[in-house]
Each structure stands twice: as C-alpha cells, then as structure tokens.
C-alpha cells in the first residue's frame, strides 16, 4: 500500500519486486507500520558522501561525519581522474534516500540518518582505519563498509593491530555500550576463485559479513564463498539481470541517480539499512543480538549450486549464501521481541605445536583437539557462535592448501579454500580462519582440523607448524536455542508489530567521545589569516593616528601656545562636519583658565580641544566647508557645541 512519487522507485526491484514477487527484501510491510529507521544513524565508511544531493541532504548527519583524507568535518567526495568517487554516495542512497521528493529513488531505511566518513580517497594506514571505525561512535550506530583488501585471489589481509583494536573497542563501547554494528561486504573475487576467509574483515567475529545474490537468487559471478559468511541480500548479477537502482552523485558524469550499482558493495548497505530498521524497533539490541537475529531469521532457499547443510542446532548454512537471504519483515519482527543473549563466553586451546607434513591429496593431515566439560567450566560456554582456528603453515604455494574444520557434531566448514591464483610462498603466519556454520551447536567435544595439499607438485611440501582453536559462544543451552527459534516463528505473523507491543529497553551508558577538539587545518588557516589581518590594520591605524598627531603638532598655528583659529569664513559648511573636523589642540577651558596652566587637568597625550572666540572657526571651514550658501553659526548652537568640544 506504500506509494512513492520517486521516479525510479518502480525500478527498485530489491525493495518491491513486481516482476518476480518475493525476490526482494520484503520491506514494504515494515514501512506500512512506520518502521523506517527513525532515530538510527548509519555511517558509510567509503570515498565520501555527496550529502548535498537532494535524495540525501534531508537525512544527512553532519554530526556523524568526518573526512579523514582531508582532515576536516565535511566528507564530500572529490572528483578524480577516474570519475570514481561516487561509491560512498551510492551506498548512502541505498540506505537512506529520501522518499516522495520526486527525485530518483528510495532508501531501505528512509527514516534513518546517514553520515559519511571519507577514508578511501587517499593513502590509508592502520591508524586511519582505527580512527574511522570509532569516529563519532556514540552517534553512528551502524558502520557500513563496502570495501576490503584486494579481491585478486592471492591476497591474505585484514585489519591490522589498530584496526582490530578499534573493532573490538567499537563493539565494547560504541553505541552507548550496546556495541557498534560493523557491516562488511564479503568481496568480489569470485572470478579469481577468491574466498572471503582470506579477508580479515569478513573473518572477524566483530563484523556482519554480507554476500550477494542476483535477482534470481543465485550467487553472481563476482561473489565469493566463505565459512564466515553470515547472510546474503540482493545485488546486481550478470548483464542479463538488473542491478540496484539508487542515488548517485551529480559530479562529473553523475546525474544524481543510477541503475547500475552492483557487487557486494551494493549488498552490504542494504543489510545495514535493514539493521537500522531493527534498531528502530529495539534500540538496545547488542552487536551480538543483531548477529543472532540474522542467523535465526535468514532463510535458506532453493539453489542447486549451493551446498546447504543443516547443523545440529537446526540452522542451514551454505558457503555461498551464509544462513540465507535476509528479510526485513523477519528481522524486524524478531527484533521486536528479542531479549538479549547472554554475555560472550570464549575458550582458547593452548597453541598446539605440530610440525607435521601435509600430505598430497587425497590424503590429508588430521589433527584433533578435545574440549572437555572441565575446559568449559570456567567460561560457562555451552553453545557455539563463531569458531576460529589460527594456523602457521609453511608451503611454497599457499593456494594449494585446503583446510577443513569439523565441529564435534561433524559439521564441516571449508575454512581455507584452495586458490589457484595464490602462488605466495610465505604460507600462513598466525592467520585466523573462522566459521559460523556450527552456530548454536554444543561446544564440548572433539574438533578436527583436516589439511591437504591439492596442488600438482609431485612432492609434499607443506608443514603445519602450529595451530590454536578458539571458541566463542554463550551459556545458552541447545534447549534455549530451540525455544528462541519457536518464539521467533510465532512473531513472524507481525502481531507484535501491530499491537504496539514493546519490551523494556535499557537506555545504555553515557560514554563521552574522548576525541578532543582538534582544530582542522582549514580552521587554523582561517584563524591565522584573521589574525594577520587584525594586526595589519591595527598597525595601520596606529601609524595614521601617530602621523596625524605629528602633523598637527608641527602645524604653525598651534606651535605658538594656545591655538587661534584662523578667521572663519562666513561660509560655514555643515556644522556637524566642521565641528567634527576641528583638530584637537591645547586651549582654555570654558571658565577662561588656560587648560595648560591650572584648571582642568590635561589628558595625557591628547591635546584638549580649543576654546573658541567668536569668529575663530576658519581652519576647518577652509578644509571641509563645501561651497554653497552658509548660515553664520548660531551662538546658542555654538555655545553648546563649544562646551561640548571643550
């Protein structure tokens, strides 16, 4: 029943697919119930946001924005030679493009506010990333990052020490302590058989890793697989399929609207927008609640190519699609009734030194680690969320290695997929792979790591130096999980959304943003300029006064004692002008006593105005009296004035 006058809204199939009903994010029902992301701020960490575009301006949040490339508060994108800095603006449009403005498109969370952090348009270091991830982290609720290390099928990289520390700080202290929500795109390396488990941002337990499916629900050619993929949502596919329609920048060749936004870059912001809808109905969801709700509500769907597997907790996961397709309706209805999950519990095995050779396929090296009840006693960990494996392996061609992890239930995760493009001889040095495929399963039991060499070298060359297992989860029991699944299914009718049902929501912590006020270079330059200007004029005026006085002092009329005004012509100019232009010299005070002698004290430095005998007004007349009929000065006026001057 929602209708918008935005000209491109009918083409926005990802919002409401008229051509293939159901192939959309299922958001109109949520909008009908006034859930539009109100009160939530999503920040797009990218190459800038052109917030002057009319589809973004009303929803733009300057308070949540910053430009780390130019070090000033305005994240406007800078046109460049490649005409490429439209990326952030497009992502922002997907999230919060304003509806019913007869312009372009509509955002998923069109009632939310969108900010921009410009960080990709210039040299980028670990410390800059760390600043970006926590910038205005009490204002920005969700950080949407549609970027990452190269998707070239041979890079192994992710956040470095400071970036990792900032992600962790963000989930601990961000958003009044509920935790910043970091949404990352899983990567576009599909054509290079890349895998997002080689991307530390996707692999991180602190991020929501989002993949893409095309309008037919299939994995697009560019998409990557990985065991840490949480869910997927729509984006463009190959040429025959439609891409995402969204706001665009209007600089260079930009028109303010595009129908060509695609890649996992286009999927992540849609997920960020849906999470904004969740936070409107339940602002106190923690960063882990959001991950849980995604796991519980994402839907498996028919895709023959996808290796769907159902784990012990009843969750279906595939390396291509994560736990499945995101639905705004399911996410919001689940958020409405969600009570927070227990605290995060973790268990880490000792570093297990192996130094064992990795055999050629089809054989594989298998190493086991049993996690006993005793091991988990301390942390209380009962059911799993993320499972991480940190490995150090030497091998002359890293892409030949295949690593699989089997949870106690037998659920297999391909944590390190072979990569034909990766010929790097440096192997893995403490690289952490992770999987979400065992979510909700019991933590206790034996974990099995199987590694084999699928390369075509004739000899085995790989050595597993050491590895370490880390389990993340909570005290929830499998029964708790099943109960929660049932509760959510009962909410999917929308009854809680309709009845104005509301659970209590704690307000969160008051955490000061500690970044002191840093004067930006622009401000600094302005201050310096104003300062110089002020100094210059001060000097100029002082000189003028000084020289003015010197002239007067050296004037013959005044040199010989009290001033006698040269004969005033009858042509008095405008009285005011003449009076004002009277030079100041020593003179008598009204009582006739010479101000030089006794009587009124002389004001240091300033000559006292002359007392005028009648007719003694010539000087100023000759200088400033305009030609024309003049009235002699009236004594009454004169006296008053004379007194005033004296």
């Amino acid at each position: 029943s929602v209708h918008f006058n935005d000209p491109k809204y009918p083409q926005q199939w990802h919002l409401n697919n008229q051509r293939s009903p159901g192939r959309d994010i299922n958001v109109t029902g949520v909008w009908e119930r006034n859930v539009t992301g109100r009160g939530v701020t999503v920040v797009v960490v990218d190459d800038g946001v052109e917030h002057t575009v009319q589809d973004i301006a009303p929803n733009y949040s300057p308070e949540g924005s910053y430009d780390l490339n130019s070090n000033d508060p305005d994240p406007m994108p800078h046109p460049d030679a490649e005409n490429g800095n439209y990326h952030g603006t497009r992502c922002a449009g997907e999230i919060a493009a304003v509806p019913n403005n007869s312009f372009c498109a509509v955002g998923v969370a069109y009632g939310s506010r969108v900010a921009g952090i410009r960080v990709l348009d210039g040299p980028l270091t670990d410390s800059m990333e760390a600043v970006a991830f926590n910038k205005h982290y009490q204002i920005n609720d969700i950080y949407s990052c549609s970027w990452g290390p190269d998707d070239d099928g041979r890079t192994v990289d992710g956040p470095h020490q400071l970036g990792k520390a900032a992600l962790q700080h963000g989930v601990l202290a961000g958003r009044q302590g509920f935790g910043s929500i970091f949404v990352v795109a899983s990567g576009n390396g599909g054509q290079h058989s890349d895998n997002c488990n080689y991307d530390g941002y996707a692999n991180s337990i602190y991020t929501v890793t989002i993949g893409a499916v095309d309008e037919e629900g299939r994995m697009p050619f560019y998409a990557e697989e990985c065991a840490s993929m949480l869910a997927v949502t729509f984006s463009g596919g190959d040429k025959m399929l439609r891409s995402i329609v969204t706001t665009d920048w209007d600089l260079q060749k930009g028109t303010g609207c595009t129908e060509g936004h695609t890649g996992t870059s286009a999927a992540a912001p849609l997920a960020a927008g849906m999470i904004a809808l969740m936070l409107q109905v339940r602002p106190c969801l923690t960063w882990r609640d959001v991950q849980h709700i995604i796991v519980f509500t994402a839907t498996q769907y028919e895709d023959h190519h996808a290796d769907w597997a159902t784990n012990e907790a009843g969750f279906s996961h595939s390396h291509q699609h994560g736990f499945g397709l995101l639905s705004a309706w399911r996410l919001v209805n689940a958020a409405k009734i969600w009570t927070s999950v227990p605290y995060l519990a973790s268990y880490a095995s000792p570093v297990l030194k192996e130094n064992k050779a990795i055999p050629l396929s089809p054989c594989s090296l298998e190493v086991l680690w049993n996690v006993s009840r005793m091991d988990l006693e301390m942390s209380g960990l009962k059911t799993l969320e993320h499972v991480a494996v940190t490995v150090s392996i030497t091998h002359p061609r890293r892409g030949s290695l295949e690593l699989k992890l089997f949870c106690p239930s037998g659920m297999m995760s391909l944590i390190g997929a072979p990569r034909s493009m990766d010929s790097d001889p440096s192997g893995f040095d403490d690289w952490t792979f992770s999987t979400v495929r065992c979510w909700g399963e019991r933590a206790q039991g034996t974990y099995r790591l199987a590694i084999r060499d699928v390369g075509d070298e004739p000899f085995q060359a790989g050595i597993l130096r050491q590895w370490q297992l880390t389990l993340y989860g909570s005290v929830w029991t499998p029964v708790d999980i099943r109960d929660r699944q049932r509760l959510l299914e009962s909410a999917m009718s929308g009854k809680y959304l309709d009845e104005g049902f509301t659970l209590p929501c704690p307000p969160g912590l008051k955490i000061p943003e500690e970044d002191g006020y840093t004067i930006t270079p622009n401000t600094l330059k302005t201050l310096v300029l104003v300062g110089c200007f002020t100094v210059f004029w001060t000097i100029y005026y002082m000189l003028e006064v000084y020289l003015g006085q010197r002239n007067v002092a050296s004037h013959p009329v005044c040199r010989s004692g009290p001033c006698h005004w040269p004969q005033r012509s009858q042509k008095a100019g405008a009285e005011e002008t003449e009076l004002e232009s009277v030079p100041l010299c020593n003179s008598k005070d009204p009582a006739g006593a010479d101000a030089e002698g006794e009587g009124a004290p002389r004001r240091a430095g300033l000559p006292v105005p002359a007392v005028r005998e009648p007719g003694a007004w010539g000087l100023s007349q000759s200088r400033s009296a305009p030609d024309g009929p003049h009235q002699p000065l009236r004594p009454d006026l004169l006296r008053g004035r004379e007194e005033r001057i004296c």
Partner: protein
Amino acid sequence: LAGTDGPGAEGPGGLSWAVHLDKLEGEQEEETLEQQADALAQAAGLVNAGRIGELQGFYLLVQPAGHRQDEQAEAIRQQTEAVLARHEAVRWYSEQRLLKRAKR
C-alpha cells in the same frame, strides 16, 4: 586506492609510528599519557600527532614537516625504532604503512 607502493611504503606524508604506551595509575592519566607521548616523540625526533581515535594509550608519532626524503629514510627508521624499542613506556609500536584497500 591507497598508495601504489604497497605495504612497504611510507605513511601518508613520510614515516610514522603507532605506539601503545603503558597505562599509568591514578588521576588524569590521559594528560600524563599525552605528555609521555610528547616526550617520547621528542626523544625519537618525531612529532606527536595525537591519540589514535578512541584507543586509549595509542598515539601516532610522525616525522616533523620538512623531513628529509627517502635517502635518509632507512637510517631514520632504524634510529627511531631503536629509541622506541628501548623506551620503558612503550608497550608496543608499529610503523604505519600504506594498506591496499579496494571498493567492492
């Protein structure tokens, strides 16, 4: 996106290091940490560019403006890292290098 030289290159505008200083007990630890960072920067011939975002105890030390160019870089790098490695207040340090990041 980021610089073309890959991870081995210098930080934006010259060499820079991130350092993690040991927490101090008691009041106003932030100011003291700031002063410590200033002193450390001076000792290492760098400039304290301030705390890194919201990460308490982490500071960015950069080469002063007008620093000498590449021919000295290696010598400066070694000399600086020797100072940082020796300094008792430094818990961790890392030279800031360009990261390669791609839009998706």
